[in-house]
């Protein structure tokens, strides 16, 4: 159990996996409750385009890809708001795939990109560096602080953005802030999970949490914990059975979802049976009398 901890690369991978998956779980609560699960999938693809452009321009990967992701999210929001006839799903589909295609086009111009291309698509947890950990730490601290400061406004905006605006909540700023946090989270998660699997780490933990609780703040805590645990255990599993870390994290989270679904179904079934017993008992007691009256 402690043997892999002797390797520095594994410790770095474990920290990176646990923290980014916990972060994705936290952010995912807002995404899932706003019924925008597709944005995580789309934005990770948009960020990929930004990452390649940053590389080509010799610009800092983290800053370049985050700005690219943020601008993509804002563009999606702008198009959806100004042109309601174009649904959010269609806007996400157009902008993020165009951005991804731009990345692919640039890569296809150069053969030297092949390894980075695979690492970006499927994650390269063993290649996590000290600088990556610093970036993950910075994004995590900033995200947690912002989520705590804007908790009440974020809750109202997530619950009912239109009415929140009437109550003076600066919903457009809140959305912009959230887009920035989301883009930065996706950028630091690419190295760990890969573009293709990030959406699952954003969506599955909050869904598991939603199945287990009816409280918003408990959902946030549970989702973060579920994300962090799936990241931690998933990386351990990937070490022992030698599979891609992103895949093992997502498969573990998916197994957790099946377990939570089964638990919620059994809980609801037991509650229904109890209600039947409570409500049905007096009715059954009264039933023979009614029958007697009808069929003397």
């Amino acid at each position, binding site marked *: 159990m402690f043997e892999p901890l002797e390797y520095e690369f594994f410790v770095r991978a474990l920290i990176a996996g646990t923290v980014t998956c916990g972060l994705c779980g936290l952010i995912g609560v807002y995404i899932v*409750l706003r019924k925008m699960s597709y944005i995580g999938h789309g934005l990770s693809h948009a960020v990929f385009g930004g990452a390649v452009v940053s590389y080509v321009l010799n610009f800092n990967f983290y800053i370049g890809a985050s700005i690219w992701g943020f601008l993509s999210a804002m563009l999606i929001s702008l198009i959806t708001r100004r042109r*309601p006839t174009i649904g959010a799903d269609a806007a996400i589909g157009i902008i993020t795939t165009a951005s991804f295609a731009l990345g692919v086009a640039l890569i296809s111009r150069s053969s030297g990109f092949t390894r980075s291309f695979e690492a970006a698509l499927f994650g390269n947890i063993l290649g996590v560096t000290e600088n990556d950990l610093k970036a993950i730490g910075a994004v995590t601290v900033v995200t947690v602080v912002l*989520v*705590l*400061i804007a*908790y*009440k*406004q974020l*809750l*109202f905006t*997530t*619950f*009912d953005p*239109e*009415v*929140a*605006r*009437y*109550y*003076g*909540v600066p919903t457009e700023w809140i959305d912009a802030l959230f887009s920035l946090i989301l883009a930065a989270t996706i950028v630091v998660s690419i190295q760990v999970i890969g573009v293709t699997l990030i959406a699952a780490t954003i969506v599955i933990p909050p869904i598991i949490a*939603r199945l287990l*609780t*009816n*409280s*918003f*703040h*408990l*959902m946030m805590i549970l989702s973060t914990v579920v994300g962090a645990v799936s990241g931690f255990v998933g990386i351990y599993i990937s070490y022992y059975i030698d599979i891609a870390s992103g895949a093992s994290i997502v498969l573990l989270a998916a197994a957790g979802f099946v377990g939570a679904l089964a638990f919620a179904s059994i809980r609801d079934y037991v509650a229904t049976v109890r209600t039947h017993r409570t409500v049905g008992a007096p009715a059954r007691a009264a039933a023979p009398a009614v029958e007697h009256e009808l069929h003397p």
Partner: protein
Amino acid sequence: MLHLAPHDLAGAPIVELKDVSCGYQGEVVLQDVSLRVMSEDFVGLLGPSGAGKSTLLRTMLGATNIYAGEVWVEGRRLPGRRPRVGYVPQLETVDWNFPTTVEEVVLMGRAMEGTLTPWTSRSDRAKAREIMDRLGILPLAKRHIRALSGGQQQRVFLARALVSEPRILLLDEPTSGVDIRTRDEILHLLDELNHQGITVIMTTHELNAVAAHLPWVVCVNRRLVAQGSPEDVFTPEILKETYGAEMPVVKYQGLTLVAEVPHLIGRKTAQREDEDVRTARV
């Protein structure tokens, strides 16, 4: 007991629209609307679906595009700084599966108050509890919003509006989708709040409930058709102009009520067919 409408009192109106044309994204929904609502008025906005009732409410919130005219709320011209009003949306627009309790929803009304902490201040919580108690929903504070009756749900959103300490309360169809008893409870509650000094403006389709509870009525259908007391406004001519249908008016115990029109043509035809059959048999 209804109190007299303060509509004719002197002084500055709390809401004033001067020749306003407004709508969304280039489309004009309401045209040339002029309206004065005095402090402590209790106003019902009536009109058919799509007439612009909700748009009129949103205009008072500064949430529509104003293409012509002026909108003044609490002495401030809109658009500009949003006025401090309590807004109760239509219940149909609420996401009932959202993981939130009654108390959490009520406290949303204080989202822009207090400190930069995720938890609400003791005074905000005390205020929310006081209002929930006043509206009779304090025992439900920890319940999920889905686990409530229609009347209780309406009270939750009313409490959220009141906790923001508004002088004006705007309600979008607060009586839709509830039974007659709950509807009367809601209207009595609004009447009480109005007596306590809050200006109430609500949209509704319940003409007779308006006649029984509200002292001032505004009829709209893409423009302002008429305004006044229910006795003055509920005439067959004005109602036809507002709704585009014949609506007979009857007087009952001092109230002006709108009667339902049966499908006379269909019945007469059916009756005639019956008579024809009977004649044939004879």
